[in-house]
């Protein structure tokens, strides 16, 4: 096949990879700090897209949609954590999977009920295309990849330098000792869940002009995000970002040969192989 197709798919893969990285970072953060595998993460993304589309319909402003989606869903995330996940702290991780699964069902069906089965739309804020070798490639896609990277970069800086970043990292490493140092652990947990939810919502809105807004987009992302978090090394932020790009590139290339529905299997195969041969994560040095 032609070089230009390969190139386009590479760029597509990178773009999807960055957005997936945004979703997966939130999931990794949440898992790292409270051992919760958030089944509902994709649904938070989906709700973010819907809230965003609602704001977009009435205001016509993409950025307003993005910001309101992030704020609303972050608040929802904090609420969920405080009501349903806090009582489960300390119980086995399987219980939290079940609880977040239950939440996922409720959120999905709520979205169906609230907005109905027809798809919504958010238009790109930046239209136009640019020359990529022989082809035209939408500027918007590059923009969202950059924006995702910026958000993730901002998260990284926040975690590394701010006081709250230290609190979060300390709580992730040793919740009990963090408590003994006066760090308000329950508040940190709720805040991290809110951040994760907010990032998912942002992904939902950023991705919407490309894939539309329907109730099923959440599911796709949940599965892929799980794959990425495991492949990247549970709780490893850098790893999950690399894994996102890796998996997305593979899928993009695969869809040159098979249908997109089947290309999804690629990520699953990567997961299975990783679990067999490098269970701590592909991008994590093997522990001695």
């Amino acid at each position, binding site marked *: 096949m032609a070089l230009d197709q390969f190139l386009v798919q590479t760029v597509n893969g990178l773009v999807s990879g960055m957005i997936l990285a945004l979703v997966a970072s939130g999931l990794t953060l949440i898992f790292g700090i409270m051992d919760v*595998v958030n089944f509902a993460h994709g649904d938070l993304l989906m709700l973010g897209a819907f809230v965003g589309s609602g704001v977009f319909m009435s205001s016509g402003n993409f950025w307003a949609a993005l910001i309101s989606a992030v704020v609303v869903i972050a608040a929802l995330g904090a609420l969920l954590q405080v009501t*349903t996940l806090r*009582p*489960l702290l300390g*119980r*086995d*991780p*399987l*219980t939290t*999977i*079940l*609880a977040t*699964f*239950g*939440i996922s*069902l*409720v959120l*999905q*069906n*709520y979205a*169906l*009920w609230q907005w109905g089965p027809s798809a919504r739309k958010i238009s790109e804020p930046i239209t136009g295309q640019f020359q990529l070798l022989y082809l035209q490639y939408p500027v918007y896609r590059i923009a969202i990849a950059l924006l995702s990277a910026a958000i993730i970069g901002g998260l990284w800086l926040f975690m590394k330098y701010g006081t709250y970043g230290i609190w979060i990292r300390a709580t992730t490493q040793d919740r009990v000792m963090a408590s003994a140092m006066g760090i308000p652990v329950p508040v940190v947990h709720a805040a991290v869940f809110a951040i994760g939810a907010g990032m998912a919502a942002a992904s939902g809105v950023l991705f919407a002009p490309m894939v539309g807004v329907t109730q099923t987009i959440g599911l796709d992302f949940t*599965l892929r995000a*799980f*794959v990425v978090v*495991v492949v990247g090394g*549970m709780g490893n932020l850098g790893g999950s970002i690399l894994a996102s790009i890796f998996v997305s590139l593979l899928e993009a290339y695969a869809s040159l040969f098979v*249908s997109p*529905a*089947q290309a*999804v*299997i690629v990520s*699953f195969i990567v*997961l*299975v192989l990783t*679990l*067999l041969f490098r*269970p701590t994560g592909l991008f994590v040095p093997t522990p001695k």
Partner: protein
Amino acid sequence: MAPAHPGARGYWIGFAVVLAGLIVAPLVLPEFWRRFVTEILIWGLLAMSSDILIGYTGMVSFGHSAFFGLGMYGAAAALLSVRPPNLWLALLYGLVAAAVVAAFVAYFSTRLRDIYFSITTLVFSQIFYVIIFTWTEVTGGENGLNFRQPPFSIPGVLSAAFTPVTLHWFVLAVVTVSYVLLRRITQSPFGMVLQSIRENEPRTRAIGYPVERYKIVAVMLSGVFAGLAGVLYAVQNRFAAPDFVFFIVSGEVVIFNVMGGMGTLAGPVVGATFFFVLREVFSRYFTQYYLIPVGIIFTLMVIFLPQGMLGFLRRRLNQ
């Protein structure tokens, strides 16, 4: 023989009563409820199979939709390829298909613990879903497969088409035998080891049990009975569709387990019944969005009533 204790006799009496009720049910209930009860039995079987893994061995699997679906499609293959459609062949194909998938899943999955296992089983469900959904020539893709219902036949002796009533009895017979079998297995030394794995896997291994082998057998057992449920479903409804392989079905099965009470075998059947009844009730007010209240109830039960309804009742009765 297990030593008789006061609970045992009460248990068997209760069992007999329920069984009698289920035998009589199709004769007295209207058409809709008749089907309802038959379907609950099938889902109950699926939930029981899942309980072997979740309740007894402590492995939360989201892969049961794959076993169920393959049992269904296996039966479909038999019923479509052989004329006249043969019930026993359908059972054979379905069980073998489910067993093969179970072996596959078992091999990969039992090397993983907890969350990794759950995610992997989920991923396997989805892999099979995608294969079935896209391989349209063989599996009918999105639309699934339709076929005729096989008659109940004993070679050389008789061949009689099923009526809704006799089909119900057939399903009841299969599910009851399965239940009794599974019960014996879970109460056997093998079952005890499984529970010990659930309670404390490292200790079980330290004592000397080949934990991996036990887990593989548990997955196979679970998968085969789930496949059996799939075959029954195919025979009853005369179609196979990819929707049943989608992991959400596995999720619903897990809901039955949690609601009814994990590790009790009868609990999941109760859970399935409870779920379907809730669905009926809530459908009146919420139409197709019944999962909103049901999902909330489920989540609340996970938090506050993790032993499920049966576990809760047991506690109460013991006091």
